[in-house]
């Protein structure tokens, strides 16, 4: 279930004075079962790119291949594609509309033409995945807290059983706890269900811990593509395009400049702490005694 973008471009308002090129000759491949982070600052084209991937927008030039098939080809079922490549928009809670949570989550399965029993099954399963129990089923979506609303909305997309899940800034506007809950939910979906996940974010910190591969977008094309460690080695170039590497990269870089021999390609606080202790002669497991 791979998605391949071949030299894709997308131009907004083609032919008017507001014409602007959002995606510029982009080629990449999203293989099956990967957890990928897509990073770029505001206006780098990442939101446009993900909409191209599930056929909500059509490329101005170039091709998008889903399992080897051109999604623009005659006879290609684009509605099925949208179910297959689930896209959770920014602030997905703004899409809730039903009188209660369960019915809202059932909206997707209902549109797929499933029987009421199957709808019910899919909805309860999706709500269980996002951690909303039976007490929430009959509540109005508008009574929920911000984080709960977002989880209910994500359940609405999960109930479609997409093989690929794209999340556009899923943690925007949430407090640290809500953020962790969503991120844990996403990595759980990847680990347990082997879903391909594309996580869009402008925060390096968010994605560094979780993803296997990072794509950095800048002005409509991909600037870097590699493992988090490879990408963050370019932290100075990243800064120039308005992004930052995780905090730990900076601390380790600073220590190295001061003459302490540490590795600089570490991402999390835990890794960094262990590395610093190592240079002072402590071995793993001895931290507690410090």
């Amino acid at each position, binding site marked *: 279930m791979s998605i391949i973008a071949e030299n894709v471009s997308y131009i907004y*308002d083609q032919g*008017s*004075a*507001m014409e602007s090129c959002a995606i510029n000759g982009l080629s990449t491949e999203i293989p099956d079962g990967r957890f990928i982070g897509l990073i770029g600052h505001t206006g780098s084209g990442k939101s446009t790119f993900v*909409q191209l991937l*599930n056929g*909500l927008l059509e490329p101005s030039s170039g091709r998008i291949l889903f399992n080897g098939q051109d999604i623009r080809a005659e006879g290609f079922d684009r*509605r099925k594609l*949208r*179910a297959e490549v*689930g*896209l*959770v*928009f920014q602030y*997905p809670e*703004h*899409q*809730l*509309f039903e009188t209660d949570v369960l019915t809202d989550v059932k*909206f*997707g399965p*209902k*549109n*797929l033409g499933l029987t009421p029993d199957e709808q019910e099954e899919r909805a309860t399963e999706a709500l269980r995945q996002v951690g909303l129990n039976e007490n929430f089923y009959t509540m109005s979506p*508008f009574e929920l807290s911000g984080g709960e609303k977002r989880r209910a909305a994500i359940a*609405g*997309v999960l109930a*479609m059983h997409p093989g690929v899940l794209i999340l556009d800034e899923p943690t925007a506007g949430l407090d640290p706890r809500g953020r962790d809950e969503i991120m844990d939910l996403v990595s759980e979906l990847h680990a347990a269900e082997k879903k391909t996940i594309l996580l869009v974010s402008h925060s390096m910190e968010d994605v560094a811990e979780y993803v296997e591969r990072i794509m950095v977008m800048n002005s409509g094309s991909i600037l870097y593509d590699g493992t988090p460690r490879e990408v963050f080695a370019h932290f100075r170039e990243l800064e120039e395009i308005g992004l930052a590497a995780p905090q730990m990269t900076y601390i380790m870089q600073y220590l190295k400049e001061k003459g302490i021999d540490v590795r600089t390609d570490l991402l999390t606080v835990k890794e960094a702490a262990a590395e610093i202790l190592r240079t002072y002669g402590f071995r793993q497991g001895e931290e507690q005694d410090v």
Partner: protein
Amino acid sequence: MFKEITLGQYYQTDSPLHRLDPRVKVSGTFVYIISLFLVSTFTGYLYAGVFLAVCILLSGVPFRYIWRGMRAVLVLLLITVIFNLFLTPGTPVVRFYRLQITIEGIRFAAKMAIRLVFLIIGSTLMTLTTTPNQLTDAMESLMHPLKKMHVPVHEISMMMSIALRFIPILMEETDKIMKAQMVRGADFESGNVITRIRNMVPLLVPLFISAFRRANDLAMAMEARCYQGGEGRTRMKPLVYHRNDRNAWLILAAYFAGAVLIRAMMLTV
């Protein structure tokens, strides 16, 4: 889907028409509309057409952009023309069943169509070259005398500018919610009228909620900045007449005099 409608949308560019004081443009549009009703001969429409063409050239807005906006009102135009074509009494040209097309009908329908097209293009040109903010500032300034009659001029213009400001926001929001529901398999394009309306619910409910939320936020933000109506309020960009505006007034006056002259000639013939 909303890109079709150009009426009420600003076209960003730099041109003599864009730089003109909005009060001149608003009054100018009114004068132009009145002139369209004054002249009612084909010579008169030629005169008005040339004036409009010059304005379009000066505005720097590509003509096909203006034309695209016209397509939205084409149906209305067509209905008007058909009614005038068939329902004007006079010398018949073509006749079938009880319907007849008369020479007078053809003339009248043609004039009506020209007048409507000019009217719409004329007002579209104003909104294309004037930002909504400039427009409401001009309205407020032009309606100022009504304040003496206790008309809440400032409040009306504030409501207008907020409403205008919300149009693109809500359009964008509609687009976003539509896409979000399409991801969940919603279908906004097929089915008969009833199912189509029913299918709009997943779009309209979130849209209304979002509109209320935005209105609430805006009211809060205005209050936080101590907004209390127009009393004693100053402007960041006060409207000031420049030399070009004076010239524009003169050109406008000359044009209107010409239109009156054509009218007078028509009456004497």
